């Protein structure tokens, strides 16, 4: 079924005098990381299928600065932020959707103080709104009755109180949503945030992603759902570490939906 992806850039639309409904902020992981690129493509397929007018910045996009900021480099963060804000403001962007909770948090919460105010939504919120407005239909055939547990990304959940959109989408797939012992407000970090993704963890008894994977495995899931490319990597590593990759898949909510829609 895989047809060509239609991925318009802001530059193209701008040249044609058009303004998309929403800017899709792809993020560094979504652009470069092999695993995360699959999430990006799944999300675009859904948008294409639903006929949503969107665009990406492409080569004009740059790191939001989140890992620099959490590592303590406020300079680098603000340089990145100001550059990105200039680009987005030049295009008159109003609404941004992203599949990365770190980009989501930074653009939504930290850019306004530097001159960049947009309506920012996480892709699960966006997809949920498409469902509500009847612009997307979802049937759960493939996932009917499957045990799925959802790992709350810290920067989506605790940091911004988004807990229900991803869960609603999973329920919409007729799947059996099972919660881990730590979920929602008390969710456990995957171990990647705060720039940890880019360094070796400090010495301890075990890595955070192993602990989190153990919590996920306790629910005996068939699928571990995630809503963040970094969580996805951490949980995938954890599942491999437990030698369960044959039985348990780690999938982004966008991938679940694209699969359910047979895209």
């Amino acid at each position: 079924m895989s047809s060509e992806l239609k991925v318009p850039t802001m530059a193209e639309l701008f040249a044609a005098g058009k303004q998309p409904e929403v800017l899709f902020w792809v993020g560094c992981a979504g652009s470069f990381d092999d695993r995360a690129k699959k999430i990006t493509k799944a999300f675009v397929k859904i948008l294409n299928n639903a006929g949503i007018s969107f665009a990406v910045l492409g080569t004009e996009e740059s790191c939001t600065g989140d890992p620099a900021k959490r590592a303590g480099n406020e300079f680098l963060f603000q340089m990145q932020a100001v550059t990105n804000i200039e680009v987005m403001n030049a295009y008159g962007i109003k609404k941004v959707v992203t599949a990365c909770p770190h980009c989501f948090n930074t653009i939504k919460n930290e850019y306004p103080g530097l001159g960049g105010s947009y309506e920012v939504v996480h892709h699960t919120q966006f997809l949920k709104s498409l469902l509500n407005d009847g612009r997307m239909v979802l049937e759960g055939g493939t996932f009917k009755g499957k045990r799925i547990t959802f790992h709350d990304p810290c920067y989506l959940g605790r940091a911004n109180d988004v807990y229900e959109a991803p869960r609603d989408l999973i329920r919409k797939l007729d799947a059996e949503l099972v919660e881990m012992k730590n979920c929602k407000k008390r969710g456990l970090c995957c171990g990647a945030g705060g720039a940890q993704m880019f360094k070796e963890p400090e010495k301890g008894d075990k890595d955070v992603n192993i602990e989190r994977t153990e919590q996920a495995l306790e629910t005996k899931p068939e699928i571990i759902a995630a809503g963040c490319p970094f969580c996805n990597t951490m949980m995938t590593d954890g599942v491999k570490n437990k030698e369960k990759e044959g039985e348990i898949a780690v999938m982004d909510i966008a991938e679940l939906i694209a699969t359910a829609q047979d895209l």
Partner: protein
Amino acid sequence: MEYLPNVIFAILLVFGIGYFARNVGRLKRNIFLGKDVDVSDNKPLRWKNMAKIALGQTKMVVRPIPGILHIIVYVGFVIINIEVLEIIIDGLFGTHRIFAGLGKVYDFLIASFEILALLVIIAVVVFWIRRNVIRLQRFLKPEMEGWPKKDGNLILYIEVVLMLLFLTMNAADFQLQQLGSAHYVQAGAFPVSAFIAPLFQGMSEANLIMVERIAWWLHISGILFFLNYLYYSKHLHILLAFPNTYYGKLRPKGQFKNLEAVTNEVKLMMDPSADPFATPAEDAPVPEKFGASDVKDLDWVQLLNAYTCTECGRCTSECPANQTGKKLSPRKIMMDTRDRLEEVGKNIDLNKGTFKDDGKQLLDDYITREELWACTSCNACVEACPVSIDPLSIIMDMRQYLVMEQSAAPSDLNNMMGNIENNGAPWPFNQMDRLNWSQES
């Protein structure tokens, strides 16, 4: 001679409250060693948070057992203060049970104090068992050794003693009322101390009066002692929880503050018309120190946080780094900040109002880099804290100091930052390849 007890009482009261006031002054001075921060926004929401979190204890019941026990002790403490008011009036004017005129209401009040006192004793015993017999994980962390552990238990002992004195006092009073002793008005209902009263059966009136008076004096002295103990104890939270929840973070937890000093410099750097070789204007402010290496670099809300910390360890038990055996403990971050602040405060007192460099600072001497770098900035600690403390903000400020003042990030992070600077991504990929994914099948 007749007025001697009243005079002694007045002296005791003045001394007790005066010493407390002196400590409050010191506390304020220390807290305002911190940088100024504007927390004057959104007053209605701030009042609401205080009412909910400090007064309403909403965050305590996240863990139901300690939560409910804590509410008992808290309500007991608040309500028994009405009794303290009566004691103070009686003490100053030589009256006895001055509120007795309230009749039925008075009986009800005394009865409810007694029941609360009993409940408090039960709760405190359970707390003690949790700390010392069941040995709950979060009370056993390294930062709890020594004084913090003793402090935790001492508070429990003091509370039991105060409650027992109160009940003993009432029991003796009850007996005296039975005897129709002069001065001892017939008032109050004693549902709990009635069970202690039989112990005093058959005692002479003089002895009963002695028991009653001793319990009364020890009770009020104990309360004044406890008041002054607060400053040296984690128990300070019974006062500071209120301002602390009022000034607690209102922004989304993931929103970190944008450093204004940096914004100004970035604007200059990005401004094509700015002359990079221009000499700075005469009145240009001294470049600010970025981030925090000592307590004075933190803002006063962060310092207030440190004094408010109850050392309950709810933050630490939720911290993913701590759960997986790393050195980081957000509770320790708060305790270290308070200890260092106390040290700085003492230094100022010793040196007649100015701080003399003692060659120490919060960073390295208290909080190690290993702890700082272990944080995932997940906000679990912030969410868990029952009194709206934000340990993460201190961790982030100290990381800023390490990176922007000392260029002392771990080498992997330096690589990451180099990549962002050069390629606009944390990995060494070319920005021009950002859209390649759309062509790949």
